[in-house]
């Protein structure tokens, strides 16, 4: 149910606005430096040594000035293929497929968690230890209870373990470590899942579209809130 009162700006119209603004501004406002050849032509009498260097406009590709339009997390990923298999199984316990949307691993959540724990920041180093340690802890716990690693367990067996880990305030002392690990994986899994196309659709987020006009909330919303 999208916002029926506000027809999205015709897509062609929106693109036209963007394109016209881009073209006219780039040429006319001079914020984009002229090509080096044009600058040289404009200053023919200057000796080569003092000729202006065209200033660099546009991202320099550093950590404080990344290319926003062609973004990429460049750092090496640290989790192994085997770790990712266990992680995927856990992510899908947290966000499984249902009738409305797919499960976490189907939309690439394990890859996001790998990007997260491998990032070149202090907090990522700590997260990496917690996630790696947690994955081993999970397999040890699975082996202790059922004689198999987590990925070898039935859904019912996985559930009995997750039930013990899922709520930190109620977790037993011997499960505290596992519960903290579970809590972090749940946060990361929901971040990865609900920022995916499938996740945004599941929540029925209907924004990020150009509109000609922003309308007041529709009547059913006002009614729901007691504002009608």
């Amino acid at each position, binding site marked *: 149910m999208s916002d029926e009162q506000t027809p999205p700006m015709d897509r062609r119209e929106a693109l036209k606005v963007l394109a016209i603004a881009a073209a006219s501004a780039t040429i006319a406002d001079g914020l984009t430096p002229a090509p080096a050849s044009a600058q040289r032509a404009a200053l023919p009498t200057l000796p080569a040594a003092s000729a202006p260097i065209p*200033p660099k406009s546009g991202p320099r590709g550093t950590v404080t000035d990344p290319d926003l339009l062609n973004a990429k997390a460049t750092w090496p990923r640290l989790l192994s293929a085997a770790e990712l298999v266990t992680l995927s199984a856990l992510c899908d316990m947290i966000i499984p497929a249902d009738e409305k949307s797919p499960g976490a691993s189907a939309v690439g959540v394990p890859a996001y968690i790998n990007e997260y724990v491998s990032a070149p920041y202090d907090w990522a180093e700590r997260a990496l230890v917690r996630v790696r340690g947690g994955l081993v802890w999970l397999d040890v716990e699975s082996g202790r209870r059922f004689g198999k690693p987590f990925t070898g367990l039935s859904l019912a067996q996985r559930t009995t373990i997750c039930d013990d880990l899922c709520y930190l305030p*109620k977790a037993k002392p011997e499960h505290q470590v596992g519960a903290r690990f579970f809590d972090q994986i749940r946060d990361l899994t929901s971040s990865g899942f*609900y920022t995916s196309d499938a996740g945004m659709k599941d929540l029925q987020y209907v924004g990020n579209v150009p509109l000609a006009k922003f309308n007041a909330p529709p009547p059913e919303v006002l009614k729901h809130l007691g504002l009608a």
Partner: protein
Amino acid sequence: MVQASPKSQTKYDVIVVGSGAGGGMAAYQLAVAGLKVLVLEAGRSYDPVRETPMFKLPRQAPLLGAGTKHKPFGFYDATVDGGWEVPGEPYTNAPGTDFKWWRSRMLGGRTNHWGRISLRMGEYDFRPKSRDGLGADWPMTYDDLAPYYDRTEMLIGVYGGDDNLENTPASSPGVLMPPPAPRATELLTKKHSAPLGIPVIPAHLAIMTTRQDANTLPARLHPNNPLAQRVLAQSMRQRAACLWATPCGWGCSVKANFQSTTVLLPPALLTGNVDIVPDAMVREVTMDASGKATGVHYIDKTTRTDRQVTARVVVLAASACESARIMLNSKSALFPNGVANSSGLVGKYLMDTVGAGIGGQIPALENLPPHNQDGASGMHMYTPWWLYKEQLAGKLGFARGYHIEMGGGRTMPGPGIFGGLDEFTQGAYGKRFKEEARRYYGSFIRFDGRGEMIPNEDSYCEIDPNVVDQWGIPVLRFHWKWSEHETKQAAHMVKTFADMITSMGGKVSGTVETDGAKVIANGGQIIHEVGTCRMGTDSRTSVLNQYGQSWDVKNLFVTDGSVFVSNADKNPTLSILALAWRTCDHILGEMQRGNI
């Protein structure tokens, strides 16, 4: 045009240091008046039209676009080489101080990412000392600045309501653009805040809800100036109205909101009177024997070499702390303590904004029928300070007020979206987690207070004699102290917000702290530093006169936040712009009178 070095064949009338709100306005106003202007920018050139990541999604960015120390406001934030830490450009703190100094090393400075909240100071705000005996009065009244507020709002495009509340002035008729319709969360807040006596009215943001009238506005803003009218009309025609999507803080490629790089620098450049040199880090104002400024030294960052340029007039607009740093580093026989610093007040009375906030979960917002709440990305409604009478009656225990900013609802899902949801669901996972997510999505709101800090003797910056940055320029050392007025105000904020959340039937997240010192943001964290070169009526107790002109050096002017005498709860950018315009009119007058 934007180029690597000044044109050697051009003699400049004015050097403007900085290209943000104050520098962009100075460059524009002086260029359309026919002066030859050189703008020196410490960061790189930047073009929002080509560089803004419009309609990008979190999942297309590293770490889902989350903030890092390199990009504190998120990957897509329109800040280049900036933040509270800039590689190679340190600053120091005196023992016991933890001041955070934000910089944006880019063309347009922090106007590229700012919150666009554009509130006028009111009549009380210019007379704080006369009202309660604290701080200092401005050397002007609201009526002096009001015409410049009107003109600035028409020039940049500001939406807002026409409420005319105590110390919350209305703009002149026809100046503001219509405010956008309130969101569901804002309407709910309004309804449940009314019984608490807390008003919720349309906010004022520098975002265009309609296109500007390029046929009539230029003539209204620049009567009898064909050049100004031509370039402004051309610039206004390149600006589109808001598309109601994609965050303003990333910049705006259709120029619907105010950025110096989309609103001020383009028409300035169209005059042909302006050269902009990026990567030019100014370190010193140069002087002649008669006590006049002759120009500046800057480090060309691309070659790490020192350059010198000259002009009749020097305008500093490098940001409050950076302008103070340049002045303190400009030592000469005439000014052994830094240029224009005979008062000894350069760097003193540094202020930021009092900030504290709290969030909550509102059951009424659960399972809300899906609809688009993006809007102008910033708030459509806000609460101006409303307790003037209680304060006057001595009921609050602190001086000066705050406004309330509000956010939340069905915003675009981002990283951390359901962090802490286990508290509400007793640890849901599996299919139940997905059901709970659908229920709770959009039901969280947040209130943030932004309040006035009173200038004090213990909050200032000075040169650290032992440290230079990578450009060889001595760095700033900060001293900072909140008074009880600020910490008690912060405590009042969180208590009030908790009351508002409770009144909405909601549950406050976390505990409501009664010790304001524990919830108040660090100095510098709200990024509203002002006050280091304050204006005044007396050269012994102020650095500048009411026109931003140095008492000591007649051809040296300042047009950034450093000129502020007080720091009302009204976010400073709109006032910086209006004051800069007023200063430019004075510069032109002084030139005509032959004084400079």
